[in-house]
């Protein structure tokens, strides 16, 4: 994140505390939602949505991704792409076979 003056850093620190609070709240929310034993599809969607938000907060603010250089974005874009291929794997496996489980 480049050279920072002392005020910059102080500003950062305030952001960190805010993000911390947000993460705590979201943790409580996700555990709270889980108590309702929602139908599995809804539950997965909600849990992953919350995890995605939390993850983005950590990545953007603690890992300073929000103000990162473009080369890092390039690396991550590539990774995300291959990550998606990896996530397609179960789909292929389950949907792709002409056999049936015993």
């Amino acid at each position, binding site marked *: 994140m480049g050279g920072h003056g002392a005020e910059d850093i102080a500003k950062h620190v305030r952001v960190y505390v805010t993000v911390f609070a947000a993460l705590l709240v979201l943790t409580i929310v996700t555990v709270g939602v889980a108590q309702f034993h929602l139908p599995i599809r809804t539950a997965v969607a909600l849990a992953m949505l919350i995890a995605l938000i939390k993850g983005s907060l950590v990545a953007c603010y603690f890992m300073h991704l929000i103000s990162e250089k473009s*080369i890092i974005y390039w690396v991550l874009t*590539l*990774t995300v792409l*291959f990550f998606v*291929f*990896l996530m397609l*794997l179960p789909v*292929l*496996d389950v*949907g*792709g*076979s*002409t*056999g049936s*489980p*015993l």
Partner: protein
Amino acid sequence: MSHDDHHHGHSHGSAHAHGDHHHELGFWQKYVFSVDHKVIGIQYAVTALVFLFFGFTLMMLMRYQLAYPKGTFPSFFAKIFGAANMPGGTMLPEFYNQLGAMHGTIMVFLGVVPLAVGGFGNFVLPLQIGAPDMAFPRLNMASYWVFFVGGVVMLFSFFVTGGAAQSGWTSYPPLSNIAPFGQTLWLIGMVFLITSSLLGSVNFIVTTVQLRAEGLSFFRLPFFVWAQFVTAFLLLLAFPPLEAAGVLQLMDRVAGTSFFMPEGLVVGNRMVEVAGEGNPLLWQHLFWFLAHPEVYVLILPAMGIVGEVIAINTRKPLWGYRLVVYSVIFLGFMSFIVWAHHMFMTGMGTTMSAFFQTTTMIISIPSVIILTAFVISLFGASIRYTVPMMFALAFLPMFAIGGLTGLPLGLTAADIHLHDTYYVIGHFHYVVAPGTLMGLFAGVYHWFPKATGRKMNDMLGKLHFWGTLIFLNGAFLPMFWIGMAGVSRRLYDQTKYFHGDAVQDLTVLSSWSVWLLGIAQIPFIINFFASMRVGKKVSDNPWAATTLEWAAPSPPPHGNFAVVPVVYRGPYEYSVPGAASDFSPQFVAKA
């Protein structure tokens, strides 16, 4: 080894005479735990060559069994391998399977990749981009030693009860789950090798991105650097899934999980007591998610070498440089979405097979482009038939045979007949042995003068070349017919099959070629070691080449360049009209 090693034998002081060494480094730091990319590169290369040779020896043994399945081995072998492997001179099937699995593993992970990436990549890449070293020298050293430990674990596995891994280099479960202890060591070894590759690839990428000399833009990079750069990304992103798979199989074997074992397995008429519900195909997906990109890891560095050698020895620019670079990038990218073409026979339906057939056909196009560019580069050239050039030229038709025979395998309908037969063995050996190995040999002859300050002998080199070319073809060409006839791979005795018995003569022919191929390597080994001491001394730029590594002294000192190089032009400016000589180095400003 190399120059320094040579001097070391006589006296420590003589090295100083060259003014190469500022820091007083002890023997251990200089030759063993060195952080210098050149020493590490040479360590990698020599270790890898030894492994290559070892992997080849395993295969020479196997070829005897294949040629004479009913005969017995000479008593000499029976004595060496003992009753556990070769009672009365008869090779046991389990020993055959160990040799096969370990041949594949050693050749790929301990031979070719360490030589192509660890050896040539480490030695040449920083020099070609004008860097003093890798970005993380200590990580580099760690990478070598982690690799070394992985190799030792693999070798050690031959000596444990039950022997080494014996479920093929692909280690398909459930077979590998119930295999003897050697398989556990194989997995542990693989985790080391993967870790080593990851460390290496991070280093390569950062070095290429950050440490290029002034003026060396991406499109002025030698093709070899591009090849290594893309390779590093393949290693970085494709290896971790195999690492995950390795951990899962390790859990299956030691912690009693059943990731890869379904319910109701019965071995020896007893139900296996595991939880079940696992999926054997999961391993195959994870394995090929790595192993397909891995085959491009095997070929790309070799292509890089061939591109360099061709440009230099045709005395003209590489044709279509940009197109070739784009092709390599595209190839690297596509290699992540073709993996299931190794799994067509697992029961795949039409949609999925249509997808993977299509991507497989698409991925052949960049290879065609690259090969075409290389061949067109010959047009209007002035070809110097040096030893490295001969290897590089032979690479082209050899790779073409290997690549072209990949096409029928990529078509599911044809693959029904060809899958898991010797046709597949023929296909991929043409790309890895007459292809990649030829490329790597070209690299050894080409950069030997840079590493040692001496040239390898031409006569011996040509002897090596012709012997290798002829006998490699003798070994692998028959395999296409053997495969067409329907003979399966990993078969201890093919004569049990009607169709196998009918082509046994071809198998014998192939075996004899393999042994003669072994003999053809003798000139190389002699040449390699002798030239370090008595080879003809040459100048810093013996091939009259343009790329940066030839600006450094031979051998380059610690820190590489006497003067920090600046780059003025593209990598292959040969025979520029109006120029003083037929080559205009990247590092020389216009007169």
